[in-house]
């Protein structure tokens, strides 16, 4: 015992010192909103914008914890495409919140955000997964071990989220000091966008989670969108993940939809899967039948899940900024239309409808 105490004495004294420092910082030190290991705050590398969006939506703005009836998760097709206030005009008093973020988080990220949302708002009635079908995260760029979804899982959802210390918020200040010689936290979160966009980013709650597409439409005429569509209207890359040390591939859409359906069951909420609009023409898309078969199979096994749109929900080029994102001017109509579809389904008027419902086959 004496040997144990003498060996570990320096460790215990160090722990006591740390505890004293942390107590002092907690009592007298400065505070920051971004005190989480979720953030990197490395010098010479701008923090990922997606992290600010997720953190703001879930923790700073209070959007996730407020009593909403319908909670949307998924990629940026929904983040930039759905205006909750417009959806709500069709919902007869139900409240809608847009918690969607970004394809970079991958299927696992969408799933973890859905789980987090359902944990934070046990009163929710419906989970809505909104994805842009031309950029599904089966794409190798969005593979399931992406650092963003790993840190999302570890530091926002998993048990490690409790490992925070008062002094941790000095991390951002230190990295700013190394890089810019300043010790303050910046007003502007991302240098990629202008001030108005940054202001919106910091105050997502005013639009219940919606953000406008951060590209000036004047810089991207219809011809440019057409070129983007020609290049990106395909499913093949998005639908599969390489497995078994590269020996084979696995289709990922169906298994992930099943996981979402099971999650909704676990939390006793309804599930809607919404494929966002695209500028693509069905006949030009290779591999569409195979991937739609996965959705049909899913719908057959989970008839209670509402899938209002076909995977090729073609919108005019003028409304689209690229293969999955709407320009802001088109979001109001799209949101109202979606609100109407959800309302019809929730009130039971439309029953089990949608292009993949067994009745529609």
């Amino acid at each position, binding site marked *: 015992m004496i*040997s*144990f105490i*003498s*060996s*570990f*004495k*320096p*460790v215990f*004294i*160090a722990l006591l*010192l*740390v505890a004293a420092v942390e107590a002092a910082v907690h009592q007298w030190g400065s505070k920051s909103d971004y005190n989480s*290991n*979720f*953030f*990197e*705050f*490395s*010098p*010479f*590398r701008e923090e990922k914008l997606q992290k600010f969006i997720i953190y703001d939506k879930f923790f700073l703005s209070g959007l996730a914890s407020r009593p909403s009836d319908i909670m949307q998760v998924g990629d940026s097709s929904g983040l930039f495409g759905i205006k909750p206030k417009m959806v709500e005009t069709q919902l007869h008093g139900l409240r809608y919140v847009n918690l969607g973020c970004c394809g970079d988080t991958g299927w696992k990220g969408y799933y973890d955000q859905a789980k987090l949302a359902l944990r934070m708002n046990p009163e929710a009635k419906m989970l809505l997964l909104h994805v842009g079908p031309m950029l599904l995260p089966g794409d190798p760029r969005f593979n399931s*071990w992406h*650092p*963003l979804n*790993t*840190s999302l899982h*570890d*530091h926002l959802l*998993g048990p*490690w989220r409790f*490992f925070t*210390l008062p*002094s*941790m918020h*000095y*991390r951002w200040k*230190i*990295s700013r*000091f*190394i*890089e*810019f*010689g*300043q010790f303050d936290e910046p007003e502007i979160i991302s240098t990629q966008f202008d001030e108005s966009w940054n202001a919106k980013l910091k105050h997502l709650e005013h639009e219940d989670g919606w953000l406008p597409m951060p590209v000036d439409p004047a810089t991207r005429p219809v011809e440019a969108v057409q070129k983007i569509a020609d290049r990106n209207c395909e499913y093949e890359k998005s639908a599969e993940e*390489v*497995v*078994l*040390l*590269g*020996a084979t*591939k696995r289709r990922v859409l169906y298994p992930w939809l099943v996981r979402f359906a099971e999650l909704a069951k676990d939390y006793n909420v309804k599930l809607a899967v919404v494929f966002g609009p695209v500028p693509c023409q069905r006949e030009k898309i290779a591999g569409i039948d195979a991937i739609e078969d996965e959705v049909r199979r899913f719908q057959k096994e989970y008839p209670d899940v509402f899938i209002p749109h076909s995977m090729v929900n073609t919108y005019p080029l003028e409304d689209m900024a690229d293969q999955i994102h709407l320009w802001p001017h088109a979001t109001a109509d799209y949101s109202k239309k979606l609100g109407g579809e959800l309302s019809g389904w929730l009130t039971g008027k439309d029953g089990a409808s949608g292009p993949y419902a067994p009745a529609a086959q």
Partner: protein
Amino acid sequence: MAFHSFTYLLGFLPLVLLIYHVLRRNVWLTNLFLTVASWVFYAWFSLASLIPLLTSSVLDFYIGKKIHASSNPKTRKWLLITSLTVNLGILAFFKYAVWFSTSVIGWLHVVDSSFITVLTQVVLPAGLSFYTFQTMSYTIDIYRGKEVPCPSFVTYLCFVTLFPQLVAGPIERSTHLIPQLSRVREVVSPQMAVLALFLISWGLFKKIVLADNFGLLVELGETQARAAQGHDMVGAGWLFAYSFCFQIYCDFSAYTDIARGSALLIGIDLMRNFKTPHFARNPSDFWQRWHISLSTWLRDYLYIPLGGNRHGGWNTARNLLITMVLGGLWHGAGMLFIAWGLWHGLLLVLYHMIPIDKHLETKLGKRIGAVCSTLLFFHLSLFGWILFRASPESLPMILESMRYNMSHIARFHLENFHLFFVGLVCAVLIPDWLAYRKGVEFTDLYPRMPGWCKVGVWVAIFYAIILIGKRAGYDFIYFQF
């Protein structure tokens, strides 16, 4: 599973230690448990990566037994060739398939592109090169009569898969590890436990605080060197080279420290893999301090069988070059890895012919000569690290930007960049200098430190990790090998 993840440090390792101490008195059960735990550790991200691991393990266990049982030299030889062919075949397929398919086959246009596409999707299982060399040394030692087959299959599996050293070494020898696994190990003493804890913490500090931040500077240097073409932002190649030199050392030695610390907690003493390599004065000295388990492996199973230094100067030079080129190729497919190996081979030959460090010490006196030869060899090895890290596309730009000195980096307009860089370098070199003077590693100094110093080091490690440690950092570099 990554050593620097919460899952490993606060979940997997404590659980393994707990169960290990319950089972400790039963060797067979302990080894079985450690083997299964190691499989879980290894298959955390990909279950399929167990396939080559198990193939290699099972094959060498049975071939080892057959070699030992056979008295016919021809049979023994064929068994050994079978083992080497399968092991090297697995290694070659996973390590070189992508390179071979994209470069060689691609150039020759001899196979249709769909075949090449399939090959490019091959995923290299982590640690393949490490455990393949480990099992190969076992079979070769039995063939040479230096080792007898391990009587227990479970103990043998534990030797190959033991989680602390499975993914990135040290490449253990059966003669060192199997005897430790074959007996009931004592309860870890408090002194050993605190040393193990220090090894793990020091490893985490080196990985999260030093290696990953140097990694940022490597990226910055490479980006700026590319941008320097036609502009005045030059000298970035130096930043790239110095940062990578320290990054790879901190990264790899951190892994070894955490591996040795974790193993110590289950009563296993893993071999040392580093010993202050930045203070080496010549290439031979360097290879006795850098990745020791690989360099001794190459010496024992390649250089000496080739003839070593036994047949005159030319043959020695040839053997050195072959050994180092193959050592470069062991790291991965690519001309630059081969160039890195060749560079070190040439340095070994050069110093063999002209002992520059000895000349410097004679001319300048022992102390100044030692400093000069250390600085000279450090910069010679620095060129090797550029070859090791650069891509064929970025290499010319990096070398071009190195025509200008590092003071030009001030033009990056990064306010306290110099402070940051110098701080990181000091955090690597000062502890290593203290250890070098005593002929040990920094972690070996811990028991000799006064109490207040120990407390200071613990607090410094803790706050360095909290305040400047990278969160979503890089994987350990040697995972890819």
